[in-house]
């Protein structure tokens, strides 16, 4: 944009120069040829520099886009990885829930079996003839230790 303005101003200046009063013309063919060559070289240099800057700018833009794409790809990869980990955790939780449910069923089933093994009184209620009773044992250091033992009898102690 800035370069276009400069070129525009240069063109206008050149046109104004053509309107300026002309001095006496001296036919110097060698100098004219040299000036044409120098002008062409200068124009070529300006164009080359301009192209170089444009290409550098494009390269920078491309590098930035590439960097952003890489970041975006990294974020996408990280998201995918996290989602995969979450899915695995959710599956694990599901497995654990199923395992707990299975163990609960097993416990209930075993409790039912134990209840069926226990003797029942005439009214059909389970008795506690065989039960777990706490026994207090003295320890070697003068303390007491409570031990759960199997006891036989009636009532609770």
């Amino acid at each position: 944009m800035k370069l276009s303005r400069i070129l525009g101003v240069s063109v206008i200046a050149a046109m104004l120069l053509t309107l300026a009063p002309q001095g006496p013309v001296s036919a110097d063919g060698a100098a004219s040829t040299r000036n044409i060559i120098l002008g062409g070289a200068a124009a070529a240099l300006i164009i080359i520099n301009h192209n170089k800057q444009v290409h550098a700018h494009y390269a920078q833009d491309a590098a930035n886009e590439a960097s952003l794409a890489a970041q975006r790809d990294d974020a996408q990869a990280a998201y995918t990885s996290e989602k995969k980990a979450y899915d695995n955790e959710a599956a694990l939780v599901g497995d654990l829930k199923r395992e707990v449910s299975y163990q609960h069923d097993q416990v209930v089933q075993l409790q039912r079996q134990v209840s069926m093994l226990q003797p029942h009184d005439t009214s059909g209620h389970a008795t506690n003839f065989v039960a777990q009773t706490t026994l207090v044992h003295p320890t070697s250091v003068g303390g007491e230790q409570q031990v759960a033992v199997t006891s036989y009898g009636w009532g609770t102690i």
Partner: protein
Amino acid sequence: MTSIRALAVCCCAVLALAGCGSSESRTADDVARAVYNDDIDSATKNFTPDLAKTVTRQELGQLSDLMHQRGDYKGLKQTGTEPDGAYDFEADFSNGTLIVKMKLDSSGKVSGYRVIPSPSM
């Protein structure tokens, strides 16, 4: 004559000491002997009505068998009292011992009676 009197006094003292066993020990001993003999009426005589209703002949027989596995019943001695009011005894047999825990209600009736095989067995 004097020696006869002394002997009589000694006999009376021995009998008095023999009767000094606590009522809990006597009750526990009575129940243990009744269980050992598989006598349900004697075993439940000192039980509370609710507890007596839970005793079956089959269970009494099992407990009697458990005692007979240890030989002849010789008696029991109190080994302690628990904070909740239960009494601990050690029943002595010719071939081992059993731990007996007994609980009495306010009227002195047995509200809980449990036998534990001794850990050494």
